[in-house]
């Protein structure tokens, strides 16, 4: 681990694996949406609160977070050359992603305990 949180081969592999998972999830989610009998908040809520769907959505969110971190980090490494500004931008990005993750997992946790 370093300033860039994951570097070299590992993020490159994670980026590709997460992309494949996200693509598969989107196909699954689209299939669920288009084959659903009723579209609405309650059916969507019950779909999300199904343990399998809670799990795959949770993994999807983790994949999105890693994918977004690695992609945005690459953009910052390419364009932001001042080291202090780079740390600042990466810090903001890290905070936003962690905040988003906590928010989503709070929702998913509520689905598990309810």
């Amino acid at each position: 681990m370093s300033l860039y949180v994951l570097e070299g081969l590992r993020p490159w592999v994670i980026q590709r694996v997460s992309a494949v998972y996200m693509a598969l999830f989107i196909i699954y989610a689209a299939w669920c949406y288009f084959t659903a009998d009723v579209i609405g908040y309650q059916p969507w809520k019950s779909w999300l609160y199904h343990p399998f769907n809670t799990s795959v959505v949770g993994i999807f969110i983790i994949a999105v977070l890693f994918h977004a971190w690695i992609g945005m980090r690459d953009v910052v490494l390419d364009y932001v050359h001042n080291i202090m500004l780079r740390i600042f931008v990466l810090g903001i990005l890290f905070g936003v992603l962690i905040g988003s993750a906590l928010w989503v997992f709070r929702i998913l946790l509520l689905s598990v305990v309810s």
Partner: protein
Amino acid sequence: MKFKIYRYNPETDAKPYIQEYQLDRVEPGTMLLAALLRIKDEQDESLSFRRSCGEGVCGSDGMNINGINGLACITSLDSLKQPIEIKPLPGLPVIRDLIIDMDQFYRQYRAVKPYLIVHDPMPEVELTQTPVQREQLDGLYECILCACCSTSCPSFWWNPDKFLGPAALLQASRFIEDSRDQAFEERLAELEGPFKLFRCHTIMNCVQVCPKGLNPTKAIGRIKHKMVTRSL
């Protein structure tokens, strides 16, 4: 035939400028280098550019021709839209006119240790390879270090001191693939980190401009593949 050529002499010019030249009686099939030599001989002896073999072997006369990097000696004037705009290879400091300072490029080339590393005692005769092992080097060893690829790479422009660039990485791949080399682990370990190898975003400008028809992007992909299989 009309030419617009980048001119800059740091000793006399405050900033670079574009100078126009007109060349008459150009025979079909004439190469750009021949035209530049005629301009230098007949019109302006101060026009500066590198050249040597004149047949695409030495890689000296790399330049930006109508926005695309290439070798002047193997670029036919017939294939170029007029006015022909000629600039130095981008991304490296200009010494004068079309001559660039290639120190950075050669530093990166040296950084990948472009020579066989053998830890065992050297054999009395030679290090042999099977035909199949030799074939692994096809598409890797032919590089003439003209710098057309590295200087066309946006990742190289963004991080010229940290990203090794397609030319150096092609050389790295050439020795990683070599069955006679015994520094496989060290070479891969040396390329780890966020900058040296992984700034390549497969933009593929390098493939488009390589005058030898090589594919540095594919070579970089082969290095990444080797890293993945090694880590499993």
